[in-house]
């Protein structure tokens, strides 16, 4: 099973939920945690995994052999990203614009273009207690977050429970992180920002046809508009975490809720039971997801 934790708005508590859920469940079954917030991965701060395995992620960018090149300009013509330009008798390559599609090297009539890897990030994995941990890290100054996320997703294991910590937002990195999920938990807070961004995230999750439920974090700080929205959209609210300065202080020190306040473990186990029940209900109705 693949369970992702997402939110439109950042800082609503995705990582706190993902790590506490993983810790609570890892007592009774094999759990993998995949941190797909590759721009700002934080789960390792709370889980302190070994991270003994490193794999560089590269984009194949063109290298032009000027001895073979006759400056016909075909490579520049086929590049959709303006990453290669032919000016008089010179070929200029802009590696940071290249998406690594391979069109230029394949279509060069002279066979003058080969490809070389350009590192844009890293995937690291290791163990944290009973949890198998994987995260991706985008290099500073790079833009290719979805590429790193796709590499992290190769570590998904259908035989186990996979918990994905997704990035904030609603665009391509979020889609890359949640697209294989069987269920998505959306963490929000009861403010106008939380509601606005929750509604955007729900649109994405519905577009991807993934069943979802909501967790309201810092319950009590704002108003009841998120409740009303969930009722109207028939989205179940699966957990409420109250505004509690003790929780905020624990998080600030990098301590999960499951460890710092062990009574929460039961609540996370119950949360998972609810998700399983929701899924078996919808599987019965729709014949299951692949």
């Amino acid at each position, binding site marked *: 099973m693949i369970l992702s934790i997402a939110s439109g708005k*950042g800082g609503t508590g995705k990582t706190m939920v993902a790590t506490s859920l993983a810790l609570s469940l890892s007592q009774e079954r094999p759990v993998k945690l995949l941190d797909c917030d590759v721009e700002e991965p934080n789960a390792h701060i709370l889980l302190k995994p070994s991270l003994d395995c490193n794999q560089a992620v590269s984009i194949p960018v063109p290298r032009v052999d000027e001895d073979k090149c006759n400056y016909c300009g075909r490579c520049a013509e086929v590049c959709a990203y303006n990453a290669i330009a032919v000016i008089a008798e010179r070929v200029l390559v802009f590696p940071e614009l290249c998406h690594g599609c391979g069109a230029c090297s394949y279509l060069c009539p002279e066979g003058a273009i080969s490809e070389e890897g350009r590192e844009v990030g890293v995937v690291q994995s290791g163990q944290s207690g009973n949890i198998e941990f994987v995260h991706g890290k985008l290099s500073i100054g790079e833009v290719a977050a979805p590429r790193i996320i796709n590499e992290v997703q190769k570590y998904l294991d259908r035989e186990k429970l996979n918990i994905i910590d997704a990035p904030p937002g609603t*665009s391509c*990195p979020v889609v890359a992180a949640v697209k294989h999920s069987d269920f998505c938990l959306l963490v929000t807070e009861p403010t106008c920002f939380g509601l606005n*961004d929750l509604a955007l995230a729900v649109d994405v999750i519905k577009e991807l046809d993934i069943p979802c439920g909501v967790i309201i974090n810092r319950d009590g700080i704002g108003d009841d508009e998120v409740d009303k929205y969930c009722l109207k959209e028939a989205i179940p609210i699966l957990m409420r975490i109250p505004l509690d300065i003790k929780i905020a202080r624990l998080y600030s020190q990098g301590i999960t809720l499951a460890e710092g306040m062990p009574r929460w473990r039961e609540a996370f186990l119950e949360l998972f039971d609810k998700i399983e029940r929701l899924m078996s209900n919808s599987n019965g109705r729709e014949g299951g997801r692949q």
Partner: protein
Amino acid sequence: MKEVTILSGKGGTGKTSVAASLASLAKNKVMVDCDVDAADLYLLLKPTFRQKQEFRGGEKAVISEDKCTGCGLCREVCRFEAISSEYKIDPISCDGCRFCYNICPADAITMQQSLSGHWFTSETRYGPLVHARLGVAQENSGKLVALVRQEAKHIAEQRGLDYIISDGPPGTGCPVISSLSGVSLAVIVTEPTLSGIHDLKRVIGVCQHFAVPVIVCINKYDINSENSHQIENYCQTQNIEVAARIPFDTLVTRALVRRIPVVEYSRNRVGREIEKLWQVVTGYLN
């Protein structure tokens, strides 16, 4: 005209609350929301007039069933796994690289530009605002950020405004980089949590990579004074000024519920620190 961008690395540290307060304190400025995924600034500025325009970002390949011979070449070369065994393109996976379009021997593939979102120009009681809404599950957020910034610059030039105040996106990737090019100053709003510190260092790295000057604002600094101290020390080693230390106060959320910038809600310690921040910002810009 000078542009200041508010960033954070980590989401939810208070970028938008700070941005809305700076909107309230600054004169002669245009506001722009560069968080095109999840724009929230307009919720506090309550825009009155809006011009809505379409944003067409990237292209997607489309295969004509009639012309396709099923030779499989497109599937073979596609590195984005966007073409199914039935030769249908998954628009979410398609990167718009045109490789398939360029090699299809049957000319069965066309490239179609898709509607990727909308952008808005509006008036608020704080001055003009430009913001956007990226379409559901769309890419090209970086392009849309560049577009809203361009429009804000245009408005500033037209009206002779002194400042562009930009509410940036979280993270360190494509939209953040797009919101940084050519700005005069980045204000990074952080919080004294281990995650906040980790993400602060990364986003400072991005600003330094693109040679953008940085100042830091610690939000909720008293939630963990040891971590706040660590942030101060780190900033000192990087020669970065910590311009404001905003205390934790539930009135920030109360102002949010009332949908007004926190500096207008109460002139207490929170408001005073944000005023101080604005003074430091103008010092850098002028």
